[in-house]
């Protein structure tokens, strides 16, 4: 079985790892920029698919099909993002005689469009947020917003996913401003500029259920994930199980997700997303018809490799487990390591990874595509690694994740690691008081470092520059060797302190 992974970065490597464990041959694809990327070296085979711009490479169906044919792939895994939710891609892969490791074209058609997804959910008996099941036209200056909605509203891409292309409008004027931008963004990201309106639910929690369906009505549920900690509508920290859910609440969403999967004969992995409002009512939002960034927390608490189950289902046509085999244990949390600057409104950062030391030890999993010498660019998503912790309970999982984040050393590029650590130390997070407005409600600020730390930093900087200058003068003996003559032994003996 030769599987081409039509993606890059950590998710490509994640999928290849399971391929390797199963003895499947994995094929990497790469754009110009990615010619030395870790995923191209991890794969058993690798093939170039086009220039850096995603539309010409990772989102280019023609290139991908040509590469698949050239290399003799039996199956294609789309990962997340890029073409993963594009219904044409799955169909084209199947028409070319290959296995598409994802939902059937029918499921994709239903759930790829957020409005038809709402319809399917309502028909399966799920509560859906109020709002019209129709698209917004671009020139809507004259229209009033529909009577069932009131400001604030969210403008969302109908073909969207992963929190991209969502805009908030608090009044009529803002709505007029963002409509155009949202449409352009949606077109750029998903190849489809359709947008629609949804009410903004305040103090909501984002909770989702992982399912796997066999396409014939057999559906497994793998428990829920809490993904409320978001910036710019994109998830930052996710956990399983969702804290403080009652057994009845958990049972309800599991039922709802399974019912929707069964009603639509859902095939492959998918995530049924819900909002829980202040009154603890659940509303269906959408189905993500693909593997998700945050799937590892489910793997940690169930002990099940979701990609393995997905690959085996795709190649055999049969689910390998039954629902009784899915038992949760402990708690898991994922933090997304981003090449973004939280102190500058999460703007993307770039640079070359000059030093890398990834965390380890008990209860820590790293899904990363980083390597020393890697160049981080703004060409693709800013997600560069994920750190996931497991513990017998939520408190231990938090303690471990904090410990792991402190161990993570990524030199050369500014990341959100310190910001993630601050969230995990904040009282509302520890208490499980989490909503999608967490980062607006609770200002997460970096501590001013203590004097000792800045002093050490200043010394390190001076040493560094001094050493560089001495080296550029041509001598091989670096100044730092001289420092060693100031023996610490004497200091300790003399008891001198600073």
């Amino acid at each position: 079985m030769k599987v081409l992974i039509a993606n890059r970065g950590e998710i490509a490597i994640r999928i290849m790892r399971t391929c390797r464990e199963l003895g499947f041959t994995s094929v990497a694809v790469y754009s110009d920029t990615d010619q030395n990327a870790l995923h191209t070296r991890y794969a058993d085979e690798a093939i170039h698919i086009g220039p850096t711009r995603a539309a010409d490479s990772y989102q280019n169906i023609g290139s991908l099909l040509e590469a698949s044919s050239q290399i003799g792939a039996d199956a294609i895994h789309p990962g997340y993002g890029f073409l993963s939710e594009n219904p044409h891609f799955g169909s084209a892969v199947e028409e070319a005689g290959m296995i598409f490791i994802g939902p059937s074209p029918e499921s994709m058609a239903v759930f790829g469009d957020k409005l038809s997804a709402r319809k399917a959910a309502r028909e399966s008996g799920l509560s859906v947020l109020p709002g019209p099941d129709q698209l917004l036209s671009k020139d809507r200056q004259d229209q009033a917003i529909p009577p069932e909605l009131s400001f604030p509203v969210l403008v969302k891409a109908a073909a969207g996913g992963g929190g991209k292309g969502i805009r908030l409008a608090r009044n009529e004027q803002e709505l007029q401003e963002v409509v155009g931008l949202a449409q352009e963004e949606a077109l750029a990201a998903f190849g489809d500029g359709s947008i629609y309106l949804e009410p903004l639910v305040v103090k909501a929690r984002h909770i989702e259920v992982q399912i796997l369906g066999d396409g014939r009505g057999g559906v497994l549920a793998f428990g829920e994930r809490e993904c409320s900690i978001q910036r710019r509508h994109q998830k930052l920290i996710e956990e399983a199980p969702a804290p403080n859910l009652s057994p009845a609440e958990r049972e309800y969403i599991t039922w709802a997700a399974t019912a929707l999967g069964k009603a639509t004969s859902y095939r492959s992995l998918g995530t049924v997303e819900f909002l829980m409002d202040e009154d603890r009512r659940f509303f269906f939002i959408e189905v993500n018809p693909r593997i998700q960034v945050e799937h590892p927390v489910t793997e940690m608490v169930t002990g099940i490799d979701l990609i393995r189950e997905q690959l085996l289902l795709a190649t055999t046509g049969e689910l390998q487990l039954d629902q009784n085999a899915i038992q949760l244990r402990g708690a898991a949390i994922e933090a997304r390591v981003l090449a973004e600057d939280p102190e500058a409104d999460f703007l993307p950062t770039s640079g070359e990874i000059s030093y890398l030391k990834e965390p380890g030890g008990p209860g820590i999993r790293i899904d990363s595509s980083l390597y020393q010498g890697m160049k981080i660019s703004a060409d693709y998503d800013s997600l560069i690694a994920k750190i996931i912790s497991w513990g017998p309970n939520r408190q231990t999982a938090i303690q471990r994740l904090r410990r792991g984040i402190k161990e993570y050393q990524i030199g050369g590029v500014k990341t959100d690691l310190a910001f993630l650590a601050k969230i995990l130390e904040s009282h509302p997070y520890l208490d499980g008081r989490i909503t999608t407005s967490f980062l607006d409600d609770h200002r997460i600020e970096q501590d001013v470092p203590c004097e000792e730390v800045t002093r050490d930093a200043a010394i390190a900087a001076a040493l560094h520059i001094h050493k560089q200058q001495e080296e550029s003068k041509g001598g091989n003996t670096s100044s730092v060797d001289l420092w060693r003559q100031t023996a610490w032994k004497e200091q300790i003996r003399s008891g001198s302190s600073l």
Partner: protein
Amino acid sequence: MTNYRISIADRTYQVSIHDNELEVNGERITYDTDSLNGKGLHILRRQHRNVEAHVEAKQSGSYDIQIGGNHLNAQVAVGFQNPQSKTANSSGRIVAPMPGLIIDVLVKIGDKVKQGETLLIQEAMKMQMKLRSPLDGIVTSIAVAPGAQVEKGILLVSLQPAG
């Protein structure tokens, strides 16, 4: 003897390095230090603690330092030159806040603009953002056109403050 003036988080240190002596703000320091690789990993062995610092040169005079979970920026002047800022008042300079693609330029030279007015739209990481005017003024130069790929910090538009 080389002197360094180093500013970190609103604190300023004067570090002097001469042969095997190191002084901070005039005080002799007796740390033992090592550099572990050619890439900026330094170890300061203090009395009861080994501290690890990663130093990375950024723009001229600016260094990133990772130390004890902190990610700090240091401004360094070598030889105690007074860093007389010769850069013009930059409030009229709109620079790219990140690398990315210029989607649209909404003004032209000579336009009067108000504070908060959108001047350009830039895209990066598939996110579009409006770059707004920081003041009321007149557009005096435009350095980019739609479709341009720009580096972070590149000058995009210059404004002459009004009044």
